[in-house]
């Protein structure tokens, strides 16, 4: 319908052609697309590593991989999923959606935007090369877990650790520039009348996430720099023989690491806050409380880091402080969950794929939140620490939380990006297979952890066999289900679906992005829209 008329807009766009369009891009949509595809490719690489891990753990004993390689697989799986999948996917969504949502033509600093992206293939090329070389028998890839604790990564780290250190530096530069760009865009490029408290929640959550990134990525750069000098230049930051302390590593790392886990969930909160009102056909319940809750979570994220280190050794006063501060996070998070539920209350609900993923997010992320509360209780954590219970907890918040949020966002916005509706039947298959298999995969890990199975081991005692077998079956179903997602995305992008998208796309959707034609023109708003 309206799509036909809006075809004419496209003729005004002067899209660069060939490989140069992508290499030299200054366009937020092209850069967003590159981020999303990069994330998708990394998702399958990181997922393949996870399947090798789950194949090894299908039954007790050593079947496929030696313990040394197993450690490299868990390390690379974690690093790829955190830095190569979740974070780039969020930045990709921010690139695509924030300019459209605030009525801007593009990001504020388009060239820097492109550099932020192109650093990532460089950084991950170095990291993945170390694994490929390890498989070819040349040295070991990083093998100390994604948290790279000293002295595993300093005194005992393999030679490839130095490539890891520099690749983290490059990821950090990328994230900091990306975050600065998002802040400049939001502060400076909003359409007239778009006050801060009229911004869509997705924009708000990314605004706050960007501050978290700027505050903690430099600290990560600092800690890997200390690692580098400890390894090669004789400093003793993490060596008690010279007056340092390996525990210092954990403090500095988790000062980055805890805000980092909120960096990986706040934009998903934003996506869910866009989707739920659309499919409930109601305005979001408690807009301002959503904003303040996000800000509160961000603030609290800076004063809870040592809850990752309760068993490491800390004065009792420290343990208590970090326990109570962590519990406080449940309050703003609870506000959000109740707001989503209240938004759905008495709404005219419909259950297209984005909404299904959003509802699954609310349920399953909340489970992950509750296990987080269990973990924050110091005496209980002494039992749970470094067990599969922790693995279950953070996979619920990262897979059924962050990743489900991203999938929901892709289904929700892909008609706007491509001008085509995705295949709803395939979307439903993707959802139902995912949501069932992901619980088969991760729920038994709670029981394994409570029964005492440690994480990061290639072999285990016989009493853990059944639940591990169940989890591995879930893992393979979940992994291969994602091929449906890939197929659906490609099919939609290539216009092989029968239904063209209107500019409105979803009946209940509100916001500036839905006033643009589908697919959105190359430069979003060349003249600013007026927001009343």
């Amino acid at each position, binding site marked *: 319908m309206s799509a036909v008329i809006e075809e004419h807009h496209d003729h005004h766009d002067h899209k660069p052609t060939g490989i140069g369009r992508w290499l030299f891009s200054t366009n937020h949509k092209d850069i967003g697309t590159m981020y999303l595809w990069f994330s998708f490719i990394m998702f399958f690489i990181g997922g393949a590593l996870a399947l090798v891990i789950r194949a090894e753990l299908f039954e007790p004993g050593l079947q496929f991989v030696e313990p040394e390689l197993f450690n490299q697989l868990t390390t690379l799986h974690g690093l790829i999923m955190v830095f190569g999948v979740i974070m780039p996917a969020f930045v990709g969504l921010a690139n695509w959606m924030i300019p459209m949502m605030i009525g801007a033509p593009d990001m504020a600093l388009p060239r820097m935007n492109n550099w932020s992206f192109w650093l990532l293939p460089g950084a991950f090329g170095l990291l993945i090369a170390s694994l490929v070389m390890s498989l070819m028998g040349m040295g070991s890839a990083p093998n100390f877990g994604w948290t790279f604790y000293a002295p595993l990564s300093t005194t005992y780290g393999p030679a490839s650790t130095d490539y890891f250190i520099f690749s983290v530096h490059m990821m950090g530069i990328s994230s900091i520039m990306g975050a600065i760009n998002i802040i400049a865009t939001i502060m400076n490029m909003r359409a007239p009348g778009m006050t801060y408290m009229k911004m869509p929640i997705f924009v708000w959550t990314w605004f706050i996430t960007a501050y978290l990134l700027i505050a903690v990525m430099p600290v990560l750069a600092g800690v890997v720099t200390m690692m580098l000098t400890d390894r090669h230049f004789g400093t003793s930051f993490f060596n008690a023989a*010279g007056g*340092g302390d390996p525990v210092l590593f954990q403090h500095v790392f988790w000062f980055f690491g805890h805000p980092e886990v909120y960096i990986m969930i706040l934009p998903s909160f934003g996506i869910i806050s866009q989707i739920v009102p659309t499919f409930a056909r109601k305005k979001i319940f408690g807009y301002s409380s959503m904003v303040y809750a996000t800000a509160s979570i961000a603030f609290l994220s800076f004063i809870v880091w040592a809850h990752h280190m309760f068993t490491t050794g800390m004065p009792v006063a420290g343990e208590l402080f970090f326990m109570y501060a962590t519990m406080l996070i449940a309050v703003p998070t609870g506000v959000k969950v109740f707001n989503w539920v209240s938004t759905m209350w008495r709404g005219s609900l419909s259950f297209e794929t984005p909404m299904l993923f959003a509802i699954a997010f609310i349920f399953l992320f909340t489970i992950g939140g509750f296990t987080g509360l269990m973990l924050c209780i110091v005496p209980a954590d002494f039992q749970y620490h470094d067990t599969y219970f922790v693995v279950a907890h953070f996979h619920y918040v990262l897979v059924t939380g962050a990743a489900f949020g991203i999938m929901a966002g892709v289904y929700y916005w892909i008609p706007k990006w491509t001008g085509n509706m995705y295949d709803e039947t395939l979307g439903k298959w993707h959802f139902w297979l995912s949501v069932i298999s992901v619980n088969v995969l991760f729920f038994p890990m709670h029981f394994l952890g409570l029964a005492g199975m440690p994480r990061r081991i290639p072999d285990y005692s016989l009493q853990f066999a059944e639940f591990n077998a169940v989890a591995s079956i879930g893992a393979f179903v979940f992994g291969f289900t994602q091929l449906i997602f890939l197929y659906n995305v490609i099919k939609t992008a290539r216009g092989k679906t029968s239904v063209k998208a209107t500019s409105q796309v979803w009946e209940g959707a509100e916001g500036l992005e839905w006033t643009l034609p589908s697919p959105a023109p190359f430069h979003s708003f060349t003249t600013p829209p007026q927001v009343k």
Partner: protein
Amino acid sequence: MSTTNHGEYFIPEPSKWPVIGTIALVTTVIGAVHTIHAGELNWLLPIGFLLIAYLFFGWFGAVIDESMGGHYNAQVDKSFRIGMLWFIFSEVMFFAAFFGALFYARVFALDWLGGGGNNAATHEYLWPAFNAIWPVLSNPDNTKFAPPAEAMGASGLPAFNTAVLLASSVTVTIAHHGLRANHRKPLIIWLAITVALGVSFLFLQAEEYMHAYEQMGLTLDSGIYGSTFFMLTGFHGFHVTMGTTMLLVMLIRSIKGHFTSDNHFAFEAVAWYWHFVDVVWLGLYIFVYWL
């Protein structure tokens, strides 16, 4: 928002610089790892540095051309300001990591190694001879980390350097006032003095390092005191080097007449950066040299 002219959005043309930047960094990184490990590809490191220099000349050159060509409007100017401000904040957090390490070592790690808190057993079983005193002139294991013979004092050269850097913050402000009043001569003179002060600071810092290494036995590998001392002052010195280079570029651009009284964001950004470097030094002077 109403002050911004929305009719003229500025979006740069496609640019090769980001990709060159990535190639430059990957080259540098591979060269650096091979240099550390005495590998075959260590020659990539200087090439990487050259590429980074090429990147800076090219990218900033392109931005200067656009700026001089009048392509930037008030909105672009504001984006640059926001960008520079939060970049400086990220630098603050980078230094915060090292200050945090310093405070943690001084307050907790050394105290516990000396038997503080409930760590009497730690002290007894690991290094019973160790005394927790700052500056650390005797490490827990002096065979692995040879301790310094003496600590760096706060008076003398460091105090003089503090004066140099504080003075340079004043002179750059005077130069800025000159620029805003369209007085070219004071702008150039005071900016040149600022650059000279920056160079003097670096020269004196190099003197201090040589003294530390040759006379005091204070080195990067002389335990946590040397580690924190050299990493904090070293990164600060690196930032002063960057800042001085930037000031020098501003001086050349001032002489060329690039700036007007109401359009000189580059100058202001460098001045902000210079004040930031100054403030970090004050923190260093207090916590590394003095207390």
